[in-house]
């Protein structure tokens, strides 16, 4: 089938010199197209809402000081991205390539901030670092410090969002480091480059796609975050969109604003494409993926240890401490902490489903965009990111619209909810898989094809096993973010469907902090299991 198609397929522009079979096999093309259509639904909704109301929405949008808000939002997004790359790349390198003490321990802990919902992160930051907060109380006695630098506004949002979202970059860079052929670095060392020069001139350039993929996620995530910016009073675009719903129940204006956000998202995608570059990232000759020799830190191990520990303290220990403090204080005050086991089960279960489904959707898309380059496949790839730039409530309402009207039996059921998770989190999986796939030499597949295997067979028996690390990393990433997802779960979950995230939200929004602490801590606990699994697995040399 696929072979026949190759014969009739027009010769697509050959960008990398290897592609003789530019027309993708059917089992890649059809799922990719389906995924693209699903991903475009929220955009269709936003466009429909905006223009369905006539010219009003645009007028309203133009009247307001949109540009101000837009610039402010983009500035925050860029700053958070820069901060996360600065945090994540060294940590990834230290935990994969060096003899840093307790590497596995740090590997698990540095990924976990990803599961802290941003409103919890912000609440914790305010409790700890706000005026008269815990840190200040501690400093007040011995040091007489009665005023800390302000947590509200840009600086607080930058701090909270950076420390919560750097694991996006970390996950993709770590996966790339594991897949990087150590022979290249060894050759560089052999040719006389020092450890640092090797990192800068060999390792870092090969990490570019992974850094770009992770950084893009952070940038888009920052655009769409509501929890942190609302509590920290930073007027980002998404906050304005929420306020439009909140204050005037105005879906048209909110849709028009979302459309602007979609455009910003596309602009960021273009930037990422540039940053990613056009180079090849796989080794050209046959090599073997194996464990690299570890870089010895020697005297540097203690400063390195201290920096990693500091990042973990701010991003994880601090939130856990504040949550535990709330929990214990509530306990002492006689607050009953009868826990809903149902929420625990639901969270784990729906996150597993979302991870499996997202992986299944992301794999063909990633394959298509790496192995069959061309304008169509790069268009497909861009669109998969759209859901990530839109505020969760907008995507959720889009599926309320389509779900209640066109697939009524599925509306507010788990299958539709899982589909929405796939759309929201597709880029997390697709980006990581993409980065891993870029590191595989297509000659491997061609050789298998040459030996008479069908494309599907090659895909299953050659490609998937080689991609295992990337696949697992992306599944874990999706699992973690699904654990904390809120707006889609609230609006589209089956009636009475409680998760740990909805329990946390419900309790904290009615100021029952003790009750909010227990499910929030459980999210962390459950999430640490797959992360630990991933970490322990990747320490074994890949076969």
């Amino acid at each position: 089938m696929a072979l026949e198609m190759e014969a009739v397929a027009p010769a697509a522009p050959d960008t990398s010199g290897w592609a003789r079979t530019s027309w993708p096999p059917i089992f890649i093309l059809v799922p990719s197209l389906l995924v693209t259509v699903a991903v475009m639904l929220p955009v269709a909704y936003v466009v429909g809402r905006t223009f369905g109301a006539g010219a009003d929405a645009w007028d309203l949008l133009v009247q307001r000081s949109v540009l101000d808000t837009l610039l402010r939002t983009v500035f925050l997004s860029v700053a958070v991205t820069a901060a996360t790359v600065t945090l994540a790349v060294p940590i990834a390198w230290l935990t994969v390539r060096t003899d840093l003490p307790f590497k596995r321990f740090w590997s698990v802990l540095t990924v976990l901030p990803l599961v802290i919902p941003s409103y919890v992160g912000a609440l914790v930051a305010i409790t700890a670092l706000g005026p008269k907060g815990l840190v200040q109380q501690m400093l007040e006695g011995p040091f007489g410090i009665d005023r800390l630098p302000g947590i509200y506004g840009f600086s607080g949002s930058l701090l909270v969002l950076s420390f919560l979202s750097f694991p996006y970059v970390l996950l993709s860079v770590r996966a790339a480091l594991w897949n990087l052929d150590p022979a290249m670095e060894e050759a560089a060392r052999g040719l006389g480059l020092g450890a640092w020069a090797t990192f800068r001139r060999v390792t870092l350039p090969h990490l570019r796609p992974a850094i770009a993929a992770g950084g893009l996620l952070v940038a888009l995530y920052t655009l769409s975050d509501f929890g942190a910016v609302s509590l920290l009073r930073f007027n980002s675009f998404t906050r304005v969109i929420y306020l439009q719903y909140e204050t005037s129940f105005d879906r048209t204006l909110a849709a028009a604003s979302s459309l602007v956000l979609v455009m910003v998202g596309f602009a960021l995608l273009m930037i990422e494409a540039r940053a990613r570059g056009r180079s090849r990232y796989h080794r050209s000759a046959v090599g073997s993926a194996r464990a690299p020799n570890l870089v010895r830190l020697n005297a540097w191990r203690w400063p390195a240890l201290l920096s990693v520990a500091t990042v973990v303290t701010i991003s994880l220990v601090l939130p856990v401490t504040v949550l535990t403090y709330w929990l214990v204080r509530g306990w002492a005050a006689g607050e009953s902490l009868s826990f809903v086991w149902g929420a625990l089960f639901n969270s784990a279960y729906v996150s597993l489903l979302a991870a499996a489904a997202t992986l299944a959707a992301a794999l063909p898309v990633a394959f298509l965009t790496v192995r069959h380059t061309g304008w169509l496949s790069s268009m497909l790839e861009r669109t998969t990111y759209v859901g990530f730039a839109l505020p969760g409530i907008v995507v959720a309402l889009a599926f309320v619209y389509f779900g209640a009207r066109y697939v009524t039996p599925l509306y507010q059921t788990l299958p539709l909810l899982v589909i929405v998770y796939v759309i929201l989190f597709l880029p997390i999986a697709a980006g990581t898989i993409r980065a891993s796939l870029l590191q595989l030499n297509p000659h491997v597949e061609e050789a298998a094809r040459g030996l008479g295997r069908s494309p599907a067979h090659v895909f299953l028996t050659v490609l998937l096993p080689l991609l295992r690390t990337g696949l697992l990393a992306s599944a874990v990433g999706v699992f973690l973010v699904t654990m904390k997802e809120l707006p889609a779960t609230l609006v589209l979950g089956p009636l009475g469907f409680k998760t740990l995230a909805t329990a946390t939200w419900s309790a904290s929004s009615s100021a029952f902090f003790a009750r909010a602490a227990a499910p929030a801590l459980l999210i962390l606990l459950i999430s640490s299991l797959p992360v630990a699994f991933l970490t322990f697995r990747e320490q074994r040399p890949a076969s």
Partner: protein
Amino acid sequence: MSGSRFLQLLRRFRGAAAIAALSASLLVFVAACGGGEGSADLVIYSGREEDLVGPLIDQFEEETGLDVGVRYGSNAQLIATIFEEGGNSPADVFFGSDPGSLGALSDKLGVLPASILEQVPVSFRSPLGTWVGVTGRARTVVYNTDALTEADLPESIFDFTDPVWKGRIGWAPTNGSFQSMVTAMRQIVGDDETREWLEGIKANNPTEYPKNTPIVQAVANGEVDVGFVNHYYLHRFLAEEGDSFSARNAFMRGGDAGAVVLVAGAGILKSADHQPAAERFIDFLLSVEAQQYFSDETFEYPLVEGVAPQADLVPLEEIEVPDLDLSSLSDLEGTLDLLRSVGVIP
């Protein structure tokens, strides 16, 4: 593909095969229980938090044997959802936490039977009969007890425009209850004076919060000295943190909008599939039992005869409530226009 090759493939690939089998079986399971949606005897969309109303709904289920499905969310989120669902909304009852939300949904709500409406004083229900107040919540000024005593506070909300309050006020101009208070103010003193008040407060550089809870927290922390809030949030903090919590409420005494009593209320959607069960539920919310629950657990004011508010609360009669009909608070659009033109909301 021959059998042995298939087995070989399976062996090589058992991890993924296991995952595929697992997800397939999960999906089957999901499909099997996904149909449970349509089986609820009553569907409630609740803008009020689960921690507050969940136990009450459990009790209703127990007493009536009905299977009730509840969707919790913010008022705005649920209203947007109902609008997007069009005629296909599964919701029967909307239980909202401020008059503005109930008013926004008014077109979608049917007229309630007189037997329900008449249980509540006229001033606490919709003039069109589309929703009924369930509990009362007074607007109040919460103050930091380390910085101030009640005697330091002015009589009227209008006095907070005095420059002595510069940098000391917390408010939540995007919050529904605050906006309802502004609507009340417009009804009482007119748009011009309301605008002057807003501009006066704005000139005092108030700190903006997303809603009531963080204001109370901020007042107790000493971030600001006073905040404009609903009365009951303080009592939740007191229950969790004890009497050492450094904030208390003061009711404005000028008979102005600063002490207006708002409601949380409920209505039945025109598209409801379970009209009788929906009426039964609202009736239950107004029962002595449910009203007593709100009084004891949420520290709100009961609205039906014969139920007393929680002992720590200033009785409703002692609050100098402005002479005002809640039904006149439906002009949310006018209030939003005013707030936008003063520049306190985007």
